[in-house]
């Protein structure tokens, strides 16, 4: 079969598999596949290969020791000597106190920090949310309830959080729901939703604003410890999305979430 298929067509098949074709190109490939069983068989093999790789060879995580060394690299200029030791354990030795203090810092979180610096409430909350995000990624346990169904998450939260939580389905926007968990900011339990984008996750936390009359605000993006945070206020509630996604994609997530939340508010009759 293959001799009849030009190299261009083969490349097209891979582009279709990788979702890199526009609608017209995808239709063209679909047409060819249905007319040509040999081509369809080749395509089926490529799908089998892709799926096997995806399910059996998951994306790897950098070992924690390596991460600690790299983090230390950027945080302690005075400790970086002109030459790196060839053996990793020498470097661990050198950075051990720093790695330890880093872990301690994340573990103690906002509470201890406040004793010394008294940052704004915002800063505190952000710190706690980023720490929650990192903790989730490190432990591999990002959700307390795993479900892609928003009608399952919402009642689960209502058993744990006093106020109603906004839960929207963003699957068609390319951000499927993974589940939910309860984070703690200061001493307040707050609902956090986890959405997926490729191998990245977005943790969206909803918190009461300092007062119910705080005006709504447009999303504002910040970076903390290498993670992006997108924050906005709507109807007396503060929403903060933390992610390791590229900033532009987090902006797209924010836009999709606000659009879906607005649509839901319109559907819900006022009490």
């Amino acid at each position, binding site marked *: 079969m293959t001799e009849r298929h030009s190299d261009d067509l083969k490349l097209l098949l891979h582009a279709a598999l990788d979702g890199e074709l526009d609608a017209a190109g995808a239709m063209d490939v679909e047409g060819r596949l249905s007319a040509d069983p040999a081509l369809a068989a080749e395509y089926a093999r490529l799908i089998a290969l892709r799926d096997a790789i995806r399910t059996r060879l998951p994306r790897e995580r*950098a070992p924690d020791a390596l*991460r600690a060394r790299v983090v230390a690299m*950027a945080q302690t200029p005075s400790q970086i000597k002109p030459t790196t030791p060839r053996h990793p354990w020498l470097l661990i030795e050198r950075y051990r106190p720093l790695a330890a203090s880093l872990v301690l810092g994340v573990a103690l979180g906002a509470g201890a920090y406040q004793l010394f610096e008294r940052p704004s409430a915002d800063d505190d909350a952000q710190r706690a949310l980023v720490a929650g995000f990192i903790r989730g990624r490190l432990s591999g346990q990002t959700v307390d309830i795993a479900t892609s169904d928003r009608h399952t998450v919402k009642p689960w939260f209502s058993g744990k959080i006093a106020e109603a939580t906004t839960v929207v389905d963003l699957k068609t926007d390319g951000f499927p729901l993974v589940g939910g968990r309860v984070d703690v900011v200061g001493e307040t339990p707050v609902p956090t939703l986890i959405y997926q984008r490729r*191998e990245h996750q977005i943790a969206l936390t909803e918190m009461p604003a300092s007062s119910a009359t705080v005006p709504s605000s447009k999303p504002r993006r910040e970076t903390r410890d290498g993670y992006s945070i997108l924050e906005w206020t709507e109807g007396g509630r503060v929403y903060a999305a933390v992610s390791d996604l590229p900033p532009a994609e987090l902006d797209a997530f924010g836009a999709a979430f606000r659009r879906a939340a607005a649509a839901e508010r319109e559907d819900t009759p006022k009490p």
Partner: protein
Amino acid sequence: MSFRGSVPSDAARRRFNEMVLPHLDDAYGLARWLTGNQTDAEDVVQDSCMRALASLETAIVERPRAWVLTIVRNTAFSWLAKNRPKAVVLTDDPQLLDAAAARRDSAPDPEEALIAAADEAALESAIQALPHLYREVIVMRDINGMSYREIAAAIGAPQGTVMSRLARGRARLVDKLGSRA
């Protein structure tokens, strides 16, 4: 693997936290696939991060992930050339694709089932057996989920090259995994 550099500025360290740290998993994954083991991958990533930090004093970075992976692959290839000179095969030969494709013609459907049933070890060894230039694009696309555009930026080649290397690499994997006894 030593790298000489001066003390990085605050700005470089801040940019490092924003641009490099979020992509550490991808950096490590690529290094692991290119070197074939964890210890060497850690060395390569650490060295790459030192280089990244040093060049962030001046570099203008548009696509941080692609930029980080460019440094990782270059560091990995230098490391391989020095430490595993016999292992580096940078083949990019179209003839191989056709040969693999021609062999595929005889048996269509059972192959698909065999590929789908390939276990982790079979997949791992088939991918590790690929030439590095094919291996890296398959890791970036199928494991790291990068777009053609981003991969093109990372390997410093046109998108057409990304596509043809993906096609050749996958043809070999299909051939190898689909013909297991």
